[in-house]
């Protein structure tokens, strides 16, 4: 046993590519599944969320303005960054979720492989979900999938890494920007992936991760007028209906995997995609 005092890290928010402590000056203590101290984590506020939405709105135009090829490169770069920090991720998964070292390594492998999967989708989704439409007239008519815009994600409370990766990178890979509220009790794997995105060439603000108390933050996300869609995976059964109702205020796209099916399909990729159809005249 070394007598060196370890340097403890406080996990901070990720907003617009920077790592602020919460503007509220609050933090909370996160423990391992066994109840041991794991880390101090910034306790984000409603104001932090609103800042994150502003950042996401600006970032979304840049992200969608990049080529699909480039978005794939960036996502793959993230997989590379995660691979090089996989032991750190596995430690946090093992402690947070209370699983064995071996199981946590498998979880990390799955999550990295999922990022690679999404990296490959960026330049294929348009051909799978879009196409040309043979209208009865002299028009070239085509439909393309375009992102909904800014998506708010209530991350799964238990599945702290793979659940997070699926929930945020499915909408991101099709061109959305995301404001995610991390798992309240198990936020550090999400915070780590957030850190990695800042060294993977994502435009600042494409992914924002706010840690804190889900029930305090979620209503702000659900009722925010500049959010186009919300994923309510991490909402409790008691609050999910109310949040879905709040989302209706601005006709948000609402994803509720536990209500509308969550089997492995393209649901996640289609959830925050719009179809844009262009008619162009054909003539001499």
């Amino acid at each position, binding site marked *: 046993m070394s007598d060196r005092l370890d340097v403890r890290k406080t996990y901070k928010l990720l907003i617009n590519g920077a790592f602020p402590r919460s503007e509220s000056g609050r933090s909370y203590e996160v423990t391992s599944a066994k109840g041991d101290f794991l880390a101090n984590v910034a306790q984000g506020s409603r104001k932090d969320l609103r800042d994150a939405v502003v950042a996401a709105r600006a970032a979304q135009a840049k992200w969608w303005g990049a080529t699909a090829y480039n978005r794939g490169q960036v996502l793959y770069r993230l997989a590379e960054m995660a691979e090089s920090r996989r032991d750190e991720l596995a430690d946090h998964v093992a402690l947070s979720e209370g699983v064995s070292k071996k199981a946590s390594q498998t979880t990390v492998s799955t999550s990295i492989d999922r990022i690679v999967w999404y990296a490959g989708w960026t330049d294929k989704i348009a051909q799978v979900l879009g196409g040309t439409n043979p209208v*009865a007239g002299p028009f070239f008519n085509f439909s393309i999938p375009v992102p909904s815009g800014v998506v708010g994600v209530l991350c799964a409370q238990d599945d702290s890494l793979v659940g997070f990766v699926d929930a945020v990178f499915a909408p991101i890979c099709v061109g959305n920007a995301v404001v995610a509220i991390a798992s309240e009790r198990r936020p550090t794997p999400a915070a780590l992936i957030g850190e990695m995105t800042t060294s993977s060439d994502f435009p600042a603000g494409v992914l924002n991760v706010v840690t804190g108390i889900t029930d305090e933050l979620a209503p702000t996300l659900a009722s925010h007028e500049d959010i186009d869609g919300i994923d309510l995976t991490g909402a409790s059964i008691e609050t999910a209906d109310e949040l879905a109702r709040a989302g209706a205020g601005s006709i948000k796209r609402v994803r509720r995997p536990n209500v509308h099916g969550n089997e492995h399909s393209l649901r996640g990729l289609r959830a925050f995609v*719009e179809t844009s159809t*262009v008619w162009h005249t054909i003539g001499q």
Partner: protein
Amino acid sequence: MTERQLANSLLGSMEYDPAPESAAIAKLKSSYGLFIDGSFSDASSHEQFASINPANESTLATVAQASTEDVDRAVVAARRAYDKVWSKTTGAQRSKYLFRIARLIQERSRELAVVETLDNGKPIRESRDVDIPLAAAHFFYYAGWADKLDFAGFGAGPKPLGVAGQIIPWNFPLLMAAWKLAPALAAGNTCILKPAETTPLSALVLAEILEQAELPPGVVNIITGDGATGGALVDHPGVDKIAFTGSTEVGRLIQQRTASSHKHLTLELGGKGANIVFEDAPIDEMIEGVIDGIFFNQGHVCCAGSRLLVQESIADEVLRRLIRRVEQLRVGDPMDKNTDVGAINSAAQLMRIRELTDVGESEGATRYTSSCTLPEKGYWFAPTVFADVAQSHRIAREEIFGPVLSVLTFRTPEEAVTKANNTNYGLACGVWSEKGSRTLWVAERLRAGVIWANTYNRFDPTSPFGGMRESGFGREGGRHGLEAYLDV
């Protein structure tokens, strides 16, 4: 002297003689019941209400006011039909029923066109050439999908949702019924359709067609009524899916009311479409397109091009030509084959249009209204163009849903895109330019579900239609339209 009077004095009258279609072709009954479980029956309350011809305020027929009890009866019928019949009917069989319906619509197209024009007030030219043929085409298109769902891109064996409640508006009554029923039936769902309160008649003729097609009882139920009927359908726990077309205001309520249920939802809501005109646009086609974009169907079109964004360099000329063209529009008897602009669908809608246009004037926009003579009876609004409109004006922000165009200007493509997107809606936009690269550049940046380039208000069963943002979610038409009725 107006331009029309001047032309007449120089050239003699250029008016057409009346060319009215015969109302007798509609073969309307004096009253209609609810179409539930394959036959017509009275509402539980025996309550009837009148469907009015908005062109002359005469009663066309009375229809049943479905109560909560009737809605329940329809849901039970739809569920039984789903469990016992439709879910066991092969895709190939479903396909053939839909083909039959399409053919019957074609065979009774003249009758349907007359019914539609009488009940809605739209010109017979439009119901004859647009509404009815497109409704038939929609059934034809989805008929072909029913036995090919495995290949629709949603994985093998996609499952239907079950019982679908479908609530449609009054602007394209039969066409909206087709947009709802055809994909739902092709995907294997059973349906309860609630037509709009002011335009129920063509859906009831469609019910007769479903009988003729020998569609199994309960697969489609058509219940007439007001908003309370629609509300009961939305709230019914036996419904798996709600599809609604109508205002954003009502769509929001429906989304709220279904939020705590298992119900799937698609919404096709309002719009405030921008029609963007660049200085190099083909001017004659553009003027016709802009006119069609706002005055087609009296402007009762969710995707109407109600905001004209014209490049400053040609704004004066465009406005001058628009006003001249508006003067030439023939407003009047919807049954006349030469009529361009028919009646406003209801007194309530007329009031809303008047209110918003009054606000337009008081907020400082310059108003040009056609000098046409309006019939004395019925609901009428002369085609109107507002110039000098600012983005903050209510007539530039709110959906008027009438024959009223707001004209704004821009200088650069960036400004055009910013102004076009400066709305909570996102249904449709138009772009007019001879420069293809610029058109696509603009199209990429517009937040709208449908973009028409050098054309406007085109519809086709193969082409997905639907909105972004507060114009709703889900698509109707094309392969995409199946997604709204499959558990995928």
